[in-house]
């Protein structure tokens, strides 16, 4: 999933000042580290009470077929929307990325080439209104993804996989089109079979991560008007049945939820009430963190969604630090050379060699905000290995190597580079760090900060950018949602755009490996092809990894069982968290 770089970096607005302040408080913070990465904390989790969830931006939709924010997917999966399978509550990346049965009796059975998957729905599982969840509900939910002219937004992977053509969604389909769709997703009692036009080895991962394949009850569907309507099948219901975009909702126990038909590794549903408080303002991150630092009243029972901004690092000391945790986020940031303009591979290698990665991390906010990345592939995504082309580059850059590579390229120096990035206080600082070393290595860098239309501009084939800044997070823990969406020309290129492939990179060898990965029948085999594909991207310098964001999280003092898990995209896992009574 593409990252709103500005939003992601907004919390770092005063990074330089904050680093200074953190330095002043170094005596404390140096000997008072946050909890070890990934460790759960906050005392033994118990049932009951009210948990306050403080969120710093509004969601785009509460419709399962349209949800696409990682945070929302993770939380709603634990609280209100169950799928056929789900990812367990676990801090171990491999365990957390291995689906377990949820509404289905098992994790699905593929056919020989994984182009067809069959699941059996558990008997007795119900919606919040007490009605049974049926195979037809799953099929109807999937059919809504195709109505993307009426209910816009959301992930749409199924459009290219499901073995059906010219299906306009359930609202406009004629009998013939609907019959064809019903063949693509077959229902036989409680058994549902998905038929794809190609292998989909990691289909259960997609089902666990995204809610696009979740069931939807046809009788309550109002198309676009259902955007904020919630019909739960999880342990909580939304009071009033509607999510308020800018305000949130109060979640209370679902009387028709049967815990015996659920798995405690997926959700423990400890609090009696979960009160979502959404503050969509630009200053919300600081205000939310200030409340949790103060830890007064109901804020003692609060779990904030945002990571601690650098401006507050100096206050995370003593007992407050005991309530903090530092983990890797699933979001990687990288540079993309424009292959239509920077055509010489030695020039691209020189760009990579010169980068002061440590300086970039400092500009991002330091060790609590970011860590150096050695691939575009996030460390929490299954099959991760360092990209050999970038693994051994020195932390501070190698100016002499960059000069040598530039000389070997045969290009005249200084070599002009137009560096385009989404402008914010933090990216301005990162750009300055990059420019300093590139200029020293023989480049002549022009900074090109853009604002709101950033991704529209860098997607265009005729852009004047030589190098661009971008961010990405996997849609599910598979590099199939990283490498092909970003570097395969076929789904990205058209006459007017290079899509998410901002560098307009095209390689037959890379695409052949992607095809082999797509046709793989098991995940290990698939990861093998993707590792080869990533290495090829490194050789071609199709991207240059910079850093992955860190999540530096805080919680109220009366929150129990707190943990950030890979299965919740490294957000606080609401499936495990409770509050003291």
């Amino acid at each position: 999933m593409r990252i709103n770089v500005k939003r992601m970096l907004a919390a770092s607005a005063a990074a330089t000042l904050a680093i200074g302040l953190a330095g002043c408080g170094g005596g404390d913070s140096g000997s008072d580290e946050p909890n070890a990465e990934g460790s759960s904390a906050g005392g033994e989790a118990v049932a009951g009470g009210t948990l306050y969830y403080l969120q710093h931006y509004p969601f785009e939709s509460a419709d399962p077929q349209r949800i696409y924010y990682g945070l929302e997917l993770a939380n709603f999966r634990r609280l209100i929307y169950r799928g056929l399978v789900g990812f367990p509550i676990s801090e171990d990346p491999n365990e957390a990325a291995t689906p377990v049965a949820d509404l289905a009796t098992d994790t699905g059975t593929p056919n020989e080439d994984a182009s067809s998957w069959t699941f059996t729905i558990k008997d007795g599982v119900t919606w919040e209104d007490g009605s049974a969840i049926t195979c037809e509900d799953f099929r109807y939910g999937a059919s809504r993804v195709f109505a993307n002219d009426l209910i816009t937004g959301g992930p749409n992977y199924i459009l290219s996989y499901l073995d059906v053509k010219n299906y306009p969604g359930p609202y406009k389909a004629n009998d013939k089109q609907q019959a064809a769709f019903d063949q693509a997703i077959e229902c036989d009692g409680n058994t549902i079979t998905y038929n794809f036009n190609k292998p989909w080895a990691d289909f259960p991962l997609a089902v666990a991560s995204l809610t696009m394949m979740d069931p939807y009850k046809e009788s309550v569907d109002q198309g676009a008007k259902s955007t904020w309507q919630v019909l739960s099948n999880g342990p909580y219901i939304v009071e009033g049945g509607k999510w308020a975009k800018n305000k949130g909702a109060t979640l209370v126990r679902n009387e028709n939820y049967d815990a015996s038909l659920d798995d405690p590794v997926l959700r423990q549903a400890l609090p009696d009430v979960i009160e979502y408080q959404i503050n969509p303002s630009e200053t919300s991150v600081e205000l939310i963190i200030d409340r949790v630092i103060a830890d007064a009243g109901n804020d003692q029972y609060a779990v904030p969604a945002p990571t601690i901004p650098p401006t507050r690092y100096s206050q995370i000391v003593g007992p407050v630090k005991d309530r903090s945790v530092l983990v890797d986020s699933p979001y990687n940031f990288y540079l993309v050379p424009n292959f239509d303009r920077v055509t010489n591979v030695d020039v691209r290698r020189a760009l990579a060699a010169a980068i002061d990665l440590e300086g970039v991390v400092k500009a991002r906010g330091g060790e609590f905000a970011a860590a150096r990345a050695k691939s575009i592939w996030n460390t929490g995504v299954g099959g991760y290995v360092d990209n050999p082309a970038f693994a051994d580059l020195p932390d501070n850059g190698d100016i002499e190597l960059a000069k040598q590579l530039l000389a070997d390229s045969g290009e005249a120096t200084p070599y002009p580079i137009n560096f385009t990035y989404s402008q914010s206080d933090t990216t301005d600082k990162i750009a300055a760090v990059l420019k300093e070393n590139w200029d020293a290595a023989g480049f002549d860098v022009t900074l090109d900060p853009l604002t709101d239309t950033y991704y529209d501009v860098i997607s265009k084939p005729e852009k004047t950018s030589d190098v661009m800044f971008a961010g990405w997070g996997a849609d599910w823990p598979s590099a199939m949602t990283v490498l092909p969406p970003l570097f395969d020309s076929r789904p990205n290129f058209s006459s007017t755009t290079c899509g998410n492939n901002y560098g307009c990179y095209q390689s037959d060898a890379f695409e052949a490996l992607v095809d082999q990965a797509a046709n793989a029948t098991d995940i290990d085999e698939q990861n093998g092809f993707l590792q080869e594909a990533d290495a090829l991207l490194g050789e071609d310098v199709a991207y240059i990894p910079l850093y992955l964001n860190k999540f530096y999280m805080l919680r109220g003092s009366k929150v129990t069982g707190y943990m950030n898990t890979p299965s919740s995209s490294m957000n606080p896992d609401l499936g495990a968290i409770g509050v003291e009574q």
Partner: protein
Amino acid sequence: MFAYAVRRLGIGAVLLLSLTLVTYFLFFAVPSDPAKQACGKNCNEEQIEQTRVALGYDKPWIAQWGDFMTGLVKGRDFPADEELRANNPNIVTHCAAPCMGFSFVNQQTVNEILSGAFPISASIAVVALVFWVTGGVLFGILAAMTKGSFLDRGLVGLTLIAYAFPSFFIGKFLITYVSIKWGWVEYPAYLSIEEGGVSGWLSSLFLPALTLALLFLAGYVRITRSYVLESLSEDYIRTAKAKGLSQRTMIFKHALRAALTPLVTMIGLDFAGLLGGAIITENVFAYNGLGVVALQSFTSDDLPTMVGLVILIGSFVILANIIVDILYAVIDPRVRLG
């Protein structure tokens, strides 16, 4: 006066329609693609085009403006698809006249969005108005009556200092210190009268209204002070004093009346502007009024909501001007409208 009011309302309506036309033109002059934004993150060109057609962004902007005008007069269906309406009526949203459009970002009619947000903005504006008019006039009179004293300079100086700070700073300061650190008031969260009763409603408005009031206070103190001072040196005040009138009567019945005309003008325009949403204050406090709606619609290319806001805010400003002009005649008998 009636003919005057009707004429001004007519001119106001034409002005409003011109504003919507300009908004449409400016929106399409900016190089952004609302269809791409609405379609989602993994859409290919074909899907984006499909969304563009579904949202009506494939039509020339002037035709889209024509559809908007039709909606104002006759109402509209979203999506405007006869077949869908016949086969799946509950999927189609009917927006009755005066329909200001349908926000594809929020999947709601603009009328619903604005009617949900307006009470919040209006509440903040009303309470802030009470704060700043009461404070501004009283402090202004006090300053005038103690002209040149420490109190006079202190009052004018302090209000100017408050005026010098931007509203986001005052708002954040009040939240961070008054609410979070000192705990004097609960963390502000808007409560309607239905949710919290009148006292809960007023309590929830205290900090945001105070933020706005501090911003407006300085102007009102200075205007009141200078007009009262000017009046106090007039012959009719001297005559009133010679007649033995009390100081209170002199000030409130005679001197203050001279300050009312400029004050009413300021109040009308300031209040009308605030009814349209205090963008910064509402955002700092996360009160989901028209200011928050405005910011979100601009950052998400939500043209229908933007146009609806233009109409609403424009209406407030135009109406306030008309009301102020009419009030002149009431306050000052020398003014005649016709």
